[in-house]
């Protein structure tokens, strides 16, 4: 059965996009009135039908790909015409709201809708007792819609719409329980950090339009050669900024030669800024740990599986741009590796279960950035794919744990503290098993999905070396190349991060599920009234006499929460089959599938180190060692020794321990530098506003008006005769005006040779003209004829005297000069 009969008008995309939007709309507007069951049905239906439609679309895409000769299948659908603009070269660029599915976005679409559906299902049980149930699912559906817009966009503006949309939904959902101001602040922090990144993306869009003349993927690819053109109009001038020259007083700033970078580098770095914002890398990662203030399904969906991977998706999408600038590739790889290591160090000492997972997410995103930064786009994207499953499973499992803990400890913060947990595997078997499976995937237990994806990245980091693919065309131009030692350095940093990942994830697992439960003594129900201390994860309607039982223990979650966990755990374990490394398959399915997408990018841009096959076994062994060392140390420290060695280590270096636990005080650094400057700017503006603007505009104008008023008030003394006196004066002036004649005349028709001079009329006026300028009037008596006709030759100037006599016998005189200019010599 053929699914896609019109690859260019594939309207199923409208269903894929429209169902979540419809769900958001209905739940948002009428959710409160419809009731929880209807809202649940609508939300699940929306995402579920979108998922089914995605599967159908994927099948259609596979068919189209098989049919097309070059193995590049694409299904497109244009919603409507958006705008027309002009590019840097003056051509008209059409930007339409157009969506397309190709190999890359097809896979991503399945991940988003599939994992999204499972998380929706989970959330129907998790948020069952929340008063904002309808609002939650409206936002969640809206998020799925925005994410799909981002993924399926065929050009950058539509992608940006989706980009902003997911940022908005992230803000709404992080601050979902907005009554607590800490949650609202976390939402704001996320949005603002994203905004800083969006600035980079916008600059990149403008530069792309200017240099390549297009904003859709095909158009950018066609114009990509102009991004590396060595000619001056195609270079971005960094110093002096924007080109030009520093003269005069600023001459000392002028460099010997202007410093320029290629447009590809500028665009790549700008997009990198945007991606660090969205995907939580250095320097804009600070919002992700705070975003854990939102409900756990939100953390799972947005901050683990889908939204934070949008940055890597964009880099994969524009891979052919990034490879044009090896400098940018190096920057991406360094940022990724550094972030991976930094976040891993912080995660080792965190005590909140969600914070550990948040830093783990940042660290894994760093791995993905490292993957795409060294040119292993398929490997990086594969890690996105597997990370979605195991991180979602981890977060949902954490949610299940919190749900169980909250019934026991009615305190938001203490219920998430792993120091109060322990031994939960005997009460929560399903959660335990799925959490263990997902942990195995993330630390890289051999043959799990995470093992394959992470090892691929490590291997590629070692052997890949980026070069400029246009080197042949740009002979004679000095091109940047990353140093030779970059690969191994990145490799060892990534290995260290992997070891730390293994360590802290095992630490988390052992502290939560093994050992003895440490939460008996915390928050005894008898110590506080139940109504006061109910937090947000508490899903019990009533406790009855459960509270009074001293041995009340955490319990397993309902089936709507455990079944998604099981499905996700299965995927985490077995999804590696689509892209196994180590030559287990001749050509892994994912790599074959994504080959046409990255073919342009990978052509000539990656030089592989010599004797690469030798390093494959080496890197696999090192990766296995990292996993083994980390997990064994964790087991020894927390299970065998009961946590003593790490406590002693922390006691030996208290200041370092405090620094790492406080996330290296990066937030405080930002507060002291950037935010403090913004605050002082705001203060200055506020002082200016109240002092200068208020003082000048309001006080000065009111002063002027009051002064004028007090001057004029002297005239109003209330006495009628004073007013009458003023009236008399006014009357006398009017009378004088009418008693005296006024001689005015207008000249008309000056453009032709016949000129008419008309005198202004008045009561009882009589006129006497002197048209020939001889000083004597033409007629001895006054006539009532007010106009005078004259004939002029060009260039003649005549002074006409007008005498006006009114009924009282007064005469007024005026001399009018009438002239005609010479005709224009040439008529151009």
């Amino acid at each position, binding site marked *: 059965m053929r699914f896609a009969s019109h690859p260019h008008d594939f309207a199923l995309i409208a269903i894929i996009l429209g169902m979540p939007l419809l769900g958001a709309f209905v739940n948002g507007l009428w959710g409160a009135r419809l009731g929880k069951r209807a809202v649940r049905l609508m939300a699940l239906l929306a995402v579920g039908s979108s998922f089914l439609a995605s599967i159908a679309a994927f099948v259609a895409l596979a068919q189209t790909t098989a049919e097309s000769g070059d193995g590049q299948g694409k299904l497109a659908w244009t919603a409507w015409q958006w705008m027309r603009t002009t590019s840097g070269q003056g051509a008209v660029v059409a930007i339409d709201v157009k969506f397309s599915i190709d190999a890359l976005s097809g896979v991503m679409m399945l991940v988003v809708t599939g994992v999204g559906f499972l998380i929706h299902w989970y959330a129907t049980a998790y948020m069952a007792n929340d008063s904002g149930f309808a609002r939650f699912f409206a936002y969640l559906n809206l998020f799925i819609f925005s994410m799909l817009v981002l993924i399926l966009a065929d050009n950058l503006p539509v992608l940006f719409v989706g980009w902003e949309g997911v940022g908005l939904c992230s803000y709404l959902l992080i601050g979902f329980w907005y009554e607590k101001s800490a949650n609202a602040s976390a939402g704001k922090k996320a949005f603002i950090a994203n905004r800083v990144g969006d600035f980079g993306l916008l600059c990149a869009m403008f530069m792309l339009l200017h240099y390549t003349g297009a904003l859709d993927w095909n158009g950018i690819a066609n114009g990509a050669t102009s991004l590396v053109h060595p000619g001056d109009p195609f270079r971005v001038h960094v110093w002096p900024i924007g080109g030009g020259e520093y003269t005069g007083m600023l001459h000392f700033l002028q460099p010997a030669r202007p410093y320029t970078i290629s447009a590809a580098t500028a665009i790549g770095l700008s997009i990198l800024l945007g991606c660090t914002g969205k995907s939580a890398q250095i320097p804009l990662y600070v919002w992700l740990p705070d975003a854990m203030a939102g409900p756990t399904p939100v953390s799972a969906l947005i901050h683990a599986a889908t939204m934070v991977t949008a940055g890597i998706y964009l880099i994969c999408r524009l891979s052919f741009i990034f490879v044009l600038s090896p400098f940018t590739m190096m920057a991406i790889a360094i940022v990724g590796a550094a972030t991976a290591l930094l976040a891993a160090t912080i995660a080792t000492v965190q005590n909140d279960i969600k914070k550990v997972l948040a830093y783990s997410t940042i660290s894994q995103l760093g791995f993905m950035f490292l993957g795409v930064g060294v040119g292993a786009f398929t490997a990086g994207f594969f890690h996105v794919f597997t990370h979605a499953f195991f991180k979602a499973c981890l977060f949902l499992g954490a949610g299940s744990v919190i749900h169980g803990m909250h019934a026991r400890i009615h305190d938001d913060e203490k219920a998430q503290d792993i120091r109060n947990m322990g031994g939960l595997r005997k009460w929560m078997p399903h959660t335990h098993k799925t959490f263990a499976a997902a942990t195995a995937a993330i630390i890289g237990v051999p043959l799990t999905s995470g093992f394959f994806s992470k090892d691929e990245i490590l291997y590629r980091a070692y052997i890949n070396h980026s070069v400029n693919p246009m080197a042949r065309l740009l002979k004679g131009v000095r091109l940047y190349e990353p140093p030779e030692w970059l690969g191994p350095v990145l490799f060892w940093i990534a290995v260290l991060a992997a070891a730390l990942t293994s360590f802290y994830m095992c630490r988390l697992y052992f502290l939560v599920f093994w050992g003895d439960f440490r939460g008996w003594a915390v928050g005894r129900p008898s110590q506080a009234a139940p109504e006061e201390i109910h937090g947000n994860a508490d899903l019990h309607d009533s406790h009855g006499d459960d509270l009074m039982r001293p041995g009340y223990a955490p319990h397993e979650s309902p089936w709507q929460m455990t079944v998604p966990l099981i499905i996700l755990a299965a995927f985490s374990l077995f999804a590696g089959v689509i892209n196994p490394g180590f030559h287990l398959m001749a050509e892994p399915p994912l790599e074959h599938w994504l080959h046409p997408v990255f073919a342009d990018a990978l052509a000539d841009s990656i030089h592989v180190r010599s004797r690469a096959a030798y390093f494959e076994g080496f890197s696999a062994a090192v990766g296995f060692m990292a996993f083994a060392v980390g997990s064994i140390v964790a087991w020894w420290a927390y299970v065998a020794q009961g946590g003593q060695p790490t406590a002693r280590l922390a006691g030996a270096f208290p200041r370092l321990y405090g620094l790492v636990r406080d996330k290296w005080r990066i937030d405080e650094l930002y507060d002291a530098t950037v935010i403090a400057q913004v605050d002082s700017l705001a203060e200055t503006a506020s002082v200016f506003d109240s002092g200068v603007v208020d003082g000048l505009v309001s006080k000065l104008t009111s002063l002027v008006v009051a002064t004028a008023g007090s001057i004029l008030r002297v005239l109003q*003394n209330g*006495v009628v005769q004073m007013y009458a*006196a*003023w009236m*008399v004066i006014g009357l*006398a002036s009017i009378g*004088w005006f009418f*008693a005296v004649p006024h001689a005015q005349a207008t000249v008309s028709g000056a453009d032709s040779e016949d000129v008419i001079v008309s005198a202004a009329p008045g009561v009882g006026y009589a006129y006497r003209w002197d048209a020939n300028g001889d000083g004597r009037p033409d007629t001895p008596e006054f006539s009532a004829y007010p106009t005078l006709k004259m004939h002029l030759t060009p260039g003649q100037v005549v002074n006409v005297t007008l005498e006006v006599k009114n009924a*009282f*016998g007064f005469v007024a005189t005026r001399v009018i000069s009438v002239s005609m200019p010479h005709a224009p010599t040439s008529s151009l």
Partner: protein
Amino acid sequence: MISLAEAYFFLCAFVAVVGSLTVVASRGPIRSAMGLFLVIVAVAGLFLPLHAQFLAAIQFIVYAGAVVVLLLFIIMMLGPDAIPASDRRGLFARVLGASVFIISGTFALALSNHALSALHSSFPQPKMEASFGGIDSFGMILFTDDVVPLELSAALLLVAVVGVLAVAQGHVNGSGKVLADLRATARRAALRADEARGRST
């Protein structure tokens, strides 16, 4: 030898001027009212040679017979308060206004005479119909050509009657306190003014 018409004119003019000066310059309002009466009588007399017999009669009846009488009623009702003590406040404004008025008036008179004399018109005109200015012609015109102003002025008189009733009424309910406040303030101001310049009768 001066003719009868001229003598009559100058007599009436003299009486009018004397009367108006009395109006303006008398200290007591009764004397001013008498001066006004003189003016009215003189002007009515001047209407007669201008063939405005009906108008002269109306002038006499309405003006002298009603308006002056009303004025006298009010003056007598006010009693001695109708003659306030005089002072020199606001002299500048009054003198300024008056002088501007007189100067411009003289100027206007001169101008108009100059203009009029240039038009060469004089009395007497050719014979006119006997009914000119009489009650027949007045009635005919008032009730055919100018009936609209007639009705409107009737309405105006009605409005004036209502207005007089409204304004000249006694104490209105509810405004007693406001009136009393204002009155007290005014009395205090008047007392202070009196003390300032010393009481003089």
